């Protein structure tokens, strides 16, 4: 069995590794050869031993059974011998008893003391006690029966002569003078009988013989106890070996257990033979043997079956092993804890680790760090009994990583995972390259803004890139496969498009391309330019035409829009009443003039010197900068902004000039002159009107002021009176201290001064009724105004915060008027805070320089604020939100401020309430303005 030998060889090596059945794996040939012969012998031994063992076992068992049976037979034989001897002895004792009885009778007969009756009595009694006896007889010497008992016998009748057979025994008894047994015979009634002859002698006289006739049958039946006859068949066998009597013939006999013994007396060749009944059948006795043989055969048969099976199995496993070893994929068995149990040679080929060193090392040791988490997750799934399939990177012996796709099946019963891993590194790299390539191509296709469209030689669209799809508003699916007329051809243009397509297919498309309308899906039309080039495939054959398509709608639209814008621009400029011109800043050449300018200065001004034609225009010295020295980097810049009078016509113009960069990059000055003659006249009129109004208001305010101041005077006057009268009283009573009275007098004097100041304020106020502008320190004006408002503020529990910037330059203004404005605004603020919570009633008065030559004063309250609809009308005369107001205050205030070349306006206070602000020129700037006016 050479195959078995090979298989066995592998079995002992791999059994430690492969836990199931009796696995047989074949190692590579090189490893198997040296041990092959030895292993073959061992396998043969393995297979012989069970066979031999089975045979030896069977033989041993058979011998054992035989020995046991022999022993048992021996025991039985001993028992039978003993029993038979015992039975023979019993019979002998009985027969000897009968012998003695007859000998006694013979003696009595010889002595003549025995008569017939006595004979009969004794003989019958004896027969009754010994059922084996049939007859007791006295045979006379003449061989004739004289007496016979029992008396009813028919066999032995008086006068019967002995038969010859009987005579032998009769005479032998006469000769030897002792009892003699005759040969057994069968009497006429068919009964086997045995006769005992006892000679009767009286002296020398022979008087016949006493004969006892035994029934042999009865001997066998009655001289042994019943237990004997149950165990054995007892037979009397005659001298010639014929069976004379048996006690039973019913049961089967075990001839092997029999015993014969000579019966003595009569010692005439009679044998007593006992044969044991068969206690168990023949088959049960043979059963162990049969079973042993049967089982042995069965075992041998099963061994043979097993061997056949093994051989088949070995064959299969050998094939599997070849597959295992020759597999290009890694095959391995993992323990439930993730360590390798076994790996095939592909493991070494792919990863470089010797497969034999792998057992016991965990899979995770080889997995790329980034894949460990995923791998652990997969192992966990395996642990739950789920087969898994996944990809990961595994480190090779040389440190590189390889992509493996694993397919692992768990066998939970064995706590093992069977893993197959396929190297997909190459595939991965290819995939990656392919993906990069396709991504690059897609990116390129999608980033190209030029539409690309290919048609085959029959004019069918075979390709359209995303840009083209976007252009026509159709998807690539809708386009590819379309045949002329294409869906993006506008209906009205189909003949022209068809014509262009025919030219293209004929290869006569112009290199400048076609300009065609394209219909978008939404219905709008695009202008597009198609450039055509032949489409050549890899084999150099032309397969169609490629068109690159550019959307030229936008450029066209821009061009049109520019033209329109230009026209609008000209229309606007020409429509202006103001005269507009543009002149080169250096050489003063007029580059542009609008219609109004030309109407004033002639329609041929363009190209002439601006200075020569324009009237009025600023002197060179009046420009902020000399326009001739301007560099392109300095512009745009305002050059001049003022009102000028044309000395010839007497018209006033608002002239504004600005340096800017012309379309060709050179510096130009652009001038706009607007006729403001009418506006100036109106302004003048309204100014005079307001001045009149203001004078009226001043009188009204003065009246109020006087009343307030009079009230204010009460305070110091009452105090003075009190002090004075107190002093008088004390001095009258004479009970006073001088220092007390002195202090009171001083206090009275202070109050008198206070009263004096109030009166002076009234006087100043009244006296300065005509506006007189001088340099006024603003902080003093503020203090005065606050002094007047103090009473009102106190009454309304308003705190006044004063926030005047230090070193404020004096303003050029009429002191009283500005004071009045301030007072008015402060009072307004105080009134506005009537409903404000006490702690918020704060009025802030501040002043600061906002830019050179201009001071800004603000009055901020935290009151109810001004509603939007009121804000517009705030400064109109007779508008008021106060119940008792005249509605003149703010209007007058604005007039005063504007009279001072300032501005008055309101803003909402970020903290709530309203801020009034006005500006005033500082002294120097104001003087100049006044002069110029």
């Amino acid at each position, binding site marked *: 069995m050479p195959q078995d030998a090979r298989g066995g060889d592998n079995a002992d090596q791999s059994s430690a590794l492969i836990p199931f059945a009796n696995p047989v794996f074949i190692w590579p040939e090189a490893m198997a050869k040296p041990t092959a012969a030895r292993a073959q012998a061992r396998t043969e031994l393995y297979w012989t031993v069970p066979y031999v063992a089975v045979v030896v076992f069977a033989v041993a068992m058979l011998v054992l059974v035989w020995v046991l049976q022999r022993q048992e037979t021996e025991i039985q034989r001993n028992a039978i011998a003993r029993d038979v001897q015992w039975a023979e002895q019993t019979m002998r004792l009985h027969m000897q008893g009968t012998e003695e009885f007859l000998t006694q009778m013979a003696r009595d007969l010889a002595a003549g003391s025995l008569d017939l009756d006595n004979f009969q009595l004794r003989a019958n009694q004896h027969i009754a006690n010994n059922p084996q006896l049939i007859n007791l007889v006295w045979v006379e010497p003449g061989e004739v029966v004289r007496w016979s008992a029992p008396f009813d016998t028919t066999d032995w009748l008086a006068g019967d002569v002995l038969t010859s057979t009987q005579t032998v025994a009769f005479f032998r008894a006469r000769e030897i003078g002792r009892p003699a047994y005759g040969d057994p015979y069968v009497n006429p009634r068919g009964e086997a009988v045995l006769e005992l002859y006892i000679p009767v002698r009286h002296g020398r006289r022979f008087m016949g013989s006493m004969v006892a006739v035994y029934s042999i049958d009865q001997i066998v039946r009655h001289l042994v106890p019943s237990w004997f006859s149950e165990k054995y068949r007892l037979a009397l066998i005659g001298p010639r070996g014929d069976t004379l009597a048996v006690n039973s013939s019913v049961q089967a006999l075990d001839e092997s257990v029999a015993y014969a013994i000579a019966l003595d007396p009569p010692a005439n060749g009679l044998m007593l033979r006992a044969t044991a009944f068969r206690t168990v059948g023949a088959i049960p006795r043979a059963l162990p043997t049969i079973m042993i043989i049967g089982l042995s055969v069965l075992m041998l048969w099963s061994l043979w079956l097993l061997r056949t099976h093994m051989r088949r199995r070995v064959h299969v496993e050998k094939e599997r092993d070849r597959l295992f070893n020759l597999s290009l994929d890694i095959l391995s068995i993992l323990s439930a804890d993730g360590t390798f149990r076994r790996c095939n040679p592909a493991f070494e080929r792919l990863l470089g680790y010797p497969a034999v060193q792998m057992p016991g090392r965990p899979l995770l040791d080889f997995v790329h760090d980034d894949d460990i988490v995923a791998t652990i997750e997969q192992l966990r799934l395996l642990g739950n009994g789920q087969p898994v399939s996944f990809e990961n990177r595994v480190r090779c012996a040389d440190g590189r990583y390889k992509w493996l796709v694993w397919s692992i099946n768990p066998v939970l019963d064995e706590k093992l995972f069977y893993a197959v891993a396929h190297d997909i590194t190459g595939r991965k790299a290819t995939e990656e390259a392919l993906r990069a390539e396709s991504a690059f191509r897609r990116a390129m296709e999608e980033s190209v803004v030029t539409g690309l469209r290919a048609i085959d030689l029959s004019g069918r669209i075979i390709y359209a890139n995303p840009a083209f799809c976007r252009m026509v508003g159709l998807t690539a699916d809708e386009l590819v496969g379309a045949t002329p007329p294409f869906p993006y051809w506008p209906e009205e243009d189909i003949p022209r498009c068809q014509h262009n397509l025919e030219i293209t297919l004929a290869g006569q498309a112009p290199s400048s391309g076609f300009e065609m309308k394209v219909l978008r899906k939404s219905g709008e039309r695009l202008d597009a330019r198609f450039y055509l080039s032949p489409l050549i495939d890899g084999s150099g054959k032309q397969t169609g035409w490629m068109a690159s398509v550019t959307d030229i709608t936008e450029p066209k639209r821009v061009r049109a829009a520019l033209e329109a814008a230009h026209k609008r621009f000209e229309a606007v400029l020409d429509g202006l009443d103001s005269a507009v011109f543009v002149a080169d800043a250096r050489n003063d050449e007029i580059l542009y003039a609008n219609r109004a300018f030309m109407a004033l200065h002639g329609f041929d001004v363009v190209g002439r010197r601006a200075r020569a034609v324009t009237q009025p225009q600023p002197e060179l010295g009046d420009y902020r900068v000399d326009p001739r020295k301007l560099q392109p980097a300095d512009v745009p810049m305002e050059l001049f902004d003022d009102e000028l009078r044309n000395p010839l016509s007497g018209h006033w113009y608002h002239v504004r000039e600005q340096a800017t960069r012309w379309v060709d990059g050179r510096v130009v000055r652009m001038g706009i002159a607007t006729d403001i003659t009418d506006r100036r006249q109106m302004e003048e009129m309204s100014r005079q009107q307001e001045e009149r109004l203001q004078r009226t208001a001043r009188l009204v305010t003065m009246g109020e002021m006087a009343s307030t101041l009079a*009230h204010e005077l*009460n*305070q*110091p*006057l*009452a*105090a*003075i*009176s*009190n*002090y004075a*009268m*107190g*002093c008088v*009283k*004390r001095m009258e*009573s004479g009970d*006073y201290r001088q220092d007390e009275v002195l202090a*009171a007098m001083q*206090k*009275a004097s*202070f*109050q008198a001064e*206070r009263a004096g100041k109030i009166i002076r304020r009234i006087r100043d106020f009244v006296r300065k009724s005509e506006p007189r502008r001088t340099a006024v320190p603003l902080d003093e004006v503020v203090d005065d105004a606050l002094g007047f408002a103090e009473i009102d503020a*106190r*009454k309304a*529990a308003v705190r006044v915060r004063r926030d005047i910037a230090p070193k404020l330059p004096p303003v050029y203004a009429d002191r009283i008027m500005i004071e009045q404005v301030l007072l008015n605004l402060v009072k307004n603020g105080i009134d506005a805070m009537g409903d404000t919570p*006490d702690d918020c009633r704060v009025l802030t008065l501040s002043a600061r320089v906002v830019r050179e030559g201009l001071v800004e004063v603000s009055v901020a309250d935290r009151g109810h604020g001004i509603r939007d609809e009121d804000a517009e009308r705030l400064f109109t005369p007779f508008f008021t939100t106060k119940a008792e107001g005249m509605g003149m205050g703010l209007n007058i205030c604005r007039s005063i401020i504007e009279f001072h070349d300032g501005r008055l306006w309101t803003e909402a206070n970020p903290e709530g309430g309203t801020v009034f602000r006005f500006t005033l020129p500082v002294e120097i700037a104001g003087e100049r303005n006044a002069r110029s006016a």
Partner: protein
Amino acid sequence: MNGTPEAPEQIIYIVDDDEALRDSLVWLLESNRYRVAQFASAEAFLEAYHADMAGCIVLDVRMPGMSGLELYECLRERHATLPVVFITGHGDVPMAVSVLKKGAVDFIEKPFSDRDMLKLIEQCLATERESRSRVRQDAVVARRLDLLTQREMEVLELIIAGRLNKQIADDLGISIKTVEVHRARVMEKMEANSLAELVQSVMTCEAARGRFVD
């Protein structure tokens, strides 16, 4: 100038925000031997106020924060009986009327003469003194009335109603003798020497008057 010996000393409380006026007023009044306390605002006075204050208040009508009128209202709510002299700027007639209607006050307009001021203050102090003594007497009578039993009270009521002893006996269904005993006990408890004195003391008492008039 001083009050009755057992009465607390009267003080003039000046409440005015104008320091000069307040100081000068203090000077004037002290020169006239009055005791003066000064407060710069109505709030300061309210904080210092207690029911045992005696004297009068000189109060400026217009003050930042709580005005003089508001302070007056406040004091009335606290049942203060101190008389008040208001100092006002130029005559605010409607205001003066409304305040005068409310009770024991006077007005003086700035600038005022010292004579007017002193006269007003003296009047006020006298009024206050009188009302305080009346209150004290009322308390005595009320205390005595509390000593009377129910029956004695009934008898007293009938006496004040002007009934004779006989009539009283009939009204109450008791004997004249008994009425006489009650009457004597009433006289004794009320510490009255005569019938007239009894009736007067009971009728002047604010607390008792309400009980007996109807």
